[in-house]
């Protein structure tokens, strides 16, 4: 199916493929389409490993100069965050290459304990002039899919087991979001479809066969991410996740506090202790008023 879909996708013109992919003989399988970009599954390795190609096609309705600048800024913002996170625990002094604007970096003590390296896809190549970015392929299902795939069993034992597994998954989500925030990054669009559940044995390309909730929570789609260490931004990030979770998984909504507990208390979160508590307090304010801060007065 991949071959047929790919060759037609390239002529069939949702957009023109940017070079060098317009002359590539690899296959491209359309995985997802957002408002600004298209995501393809292709390969980018001599070993045949799959990779994800994110293309931001030209927007005909925008002035060409403005379009170029916006595409460039957005693609670079996303790539910089991903590279910065992949350098956690590797980069000396925490400097990000090619960074122009001075971004406030988290204090030493606040830094993620284990870091987010391995919990975000690595950047393999990019071309900000042509509007594409190639990243590592993340195996597995989205967390959204994984939760939907678990059907509550009839027997009480099974129901209890599923509940425990779900809680455990939510705690892992809380930890990974904590790590992200501790690294000075706000995701901007935290939903269960922007999180992958990667099987611990990540080499098995067919994880759909299982309805297990085991696996690493890997964050994807940093297209709306920003770099910030403010409690306000962190709280809004959590609020977005809380609202998204509630509407995507209404039957599991009452389990959401597990995420927040793990975020502020788990050792691996990096937001445990005082900072995490402050963010949760801020979250209560955000709940009262919504995502946007009042600009009146």
């Amino acid at each position, binding site marked *: 199916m991949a071959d047929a879909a790919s060759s037609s996708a390239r002529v069939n013109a949702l957009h023109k493929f940017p070079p060098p992919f317009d002359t590539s003989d690899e296959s491209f399988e359309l995985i997802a389409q957002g408002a600004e970009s298209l995501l393809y599954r292709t390969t980018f390795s*001599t070993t045949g490993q799959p990779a994800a190609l994110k293309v931001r096609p030209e927007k005909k309705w925008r002035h060409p100069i403005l379009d170029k600048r916006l595409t460039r800024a957005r693609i670079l913002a996303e790539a910089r965050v991903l590279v910065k996170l992949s350098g956690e625990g590797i980069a000396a002094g925490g400097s990000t*290459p*090619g960074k122009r604007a001075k971004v406030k970096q988290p204090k030493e003590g606040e830094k993620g304990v284990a870091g987010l390296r391995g919990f975000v896809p*690595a950047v393999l190549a990019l071309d900000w002039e042509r509007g594409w970015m190639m990243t590592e392929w993340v195996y597995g299902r989205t967390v959204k899919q994984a939760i939907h795939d678990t059907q509550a069993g009839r027997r009480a034992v099974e129901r209890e087991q599923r509940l425990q597994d779900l809680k455990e998954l939510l705690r892992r989500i809380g930890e990974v979001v904590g790590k992200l925030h501790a690294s000075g990054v706000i995701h901007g669009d935290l939903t269960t479809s922007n999180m992958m559940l990667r099987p611990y044995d990540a080499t098995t390309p067919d994880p759909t066969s299982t309805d297990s909730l085991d696996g690493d929570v890997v964050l994807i789609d940093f297209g709306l991410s920003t770099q910030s260490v403010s409690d306000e931004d962190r709280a809004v990030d959590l609020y977005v996740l809380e609202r998204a979770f509630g509407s995507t998984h209404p039957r599991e909504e009452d389990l959401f506090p597990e995420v927040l507990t793990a975020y502020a208390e788990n050792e691996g979160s990096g937001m445990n202790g005082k900072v995490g508590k402050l963010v949760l307090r801020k979250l209560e304010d955000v709940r009262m008023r919504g995502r946007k801060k009042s600009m009146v007065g």
Partner: protein
Amino acid sequence: METITLPHLPQFPLQVVLFSEVKNADFLRQQLLDGNTDFEYAFLDAAVILSREHVFAACFRAINDTLQSRLKSKNVHSEIVFALSPNNNISESFRRFGVSDTTKDLLAIKVASRDAVHTETHLKESVQGTVVPFTDEVLAGMTDEACLRKAYKIDVVGNEADAYVVGMIALKGS
């Protein structure tokens, strides 16, 4: 010699030879300085190469920039050396990543040669060294950790650093 075709760049096959214990690095460097057109190769110091992926990332970047007419240096081969460097200083990139008088192990790359056999013979004639397999294991044995740490400003050298270094090459110049 190994011929490698990078994904998406079928028209630009790479010919790669890894030499160990090279005796005439100064001669090779001089050929590049003199602009000897018989020596259109990317000569890399294997001491600052982490892995095959690392090399391929630089090659992809250099070839893509060539296709887009964005070369910062003379040709695609010098651009490979330049692409490896995390900053935009061309002479520094050659000092750190290119062949120098003290180079012991040398990675020679030729992009899209019409005559692969000639490339191989010419390289084996010109470089006084032992041809060894171009594998991650062999490369790892040639690594000079201190140089790598300094070149990329990293604390850890090893498999875990691959993704970050590849990301830096992709982001370079932004």
